[in-house]
């Protein structure tokens, strides 16, 4: 039986999408970091409109994957976190963009 809806159809085996980046919030974080050298937690919160808890959770996943580098410190008595895209994160986002473009081009 053929699935009626497009999203029910299995992805072609030749296309492998990085699911870690594919998630919208993480894609926003990766993209925001891709276009700057580095930024702090507050700047990313403002740019992505994510809440602190949400951003923190996605930040931990991206850090665990080695896509971002997180440097925790203090500004006065307040915690201050700087984030930077690693080389592997930069390469992963570039590859993701290429894969998505390729996949969309291949649509009938």
């Amino acid at each position, binding site marked *: 039986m053929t699935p009626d809806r497009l999203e029910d159809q299995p992805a072609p085996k030749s296309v492998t999408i990085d699911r870690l980046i594919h998630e919208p919030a993480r894609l926003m974080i990766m993209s*925001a970091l891709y276009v700057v*050298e580095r930024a*702090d937690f507050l700047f990313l919160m403002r740019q992505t409109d994510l809440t602190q808890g949400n951003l923190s959770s996605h930040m931990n996943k991206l850090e665990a994957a080695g896509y971002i580098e997180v440097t925790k410190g203090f500004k006065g008595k307040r915690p201050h*976190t700087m984030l930077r895209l690693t080389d592997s994160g930069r390469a992963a986002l570039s590859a993701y963009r290429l894969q998505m473009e390729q996949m969309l081009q291949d649509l009938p």
Partner: protein
Amino acid sequence: MRHVDLTQLERKAWQSYHEDGLMETAFGLIVVTAFLASIADQYRYVAYVALLLIGPLLALAKRWITAPRLGAVEFGPGRKARKLRVVLFIAALVAATALLPLLLGGENWPSDHPTGMGFILGMLVVLAFSAIAYWLQLARIYLIGLIFGIAFGSSILLDMSLPLLVGGGTVLFFGLWRLTHFIQTNPKVSEGASDDA
């Protein structure tokens, strides 16, 4: 389909960082201080010192006002190159302006030809601000350049410094209005505070 336009994203991040009104406030203060320097005969040096302090004050204001509200960011090499182009262009323009009277026919040329000098100075100011607006991709600076070009040009044409006060005051008022709006719409947020706060 999700399309990520990274160029637009970078530009949005850059422009959002300059929505605080501080740049307009600094430009307005520079021209108002230039006006004060032109009328304060004995205390002119005070105005010159104030003029030198505006740059460092702008940097401090970015740190105290903008960073606690928008966060800290270091933009990429493309932005740094654009800033460098602005600095080099303004330096070349200042050097050209200093040499201009000699090229046009001697030191007395500006005082002998106020109409020509007023027009040239006005155009140079517009050119300088257009370069800043173009390379820094901040469209409102074109308008500021036009206001200052008219102010500087007419102050020479009319042989009075009042246009500087009007032009500088207008931009200063606009900058302070933007700054107030920025502070109201972007409250300070501390990292680690509750999401509900």
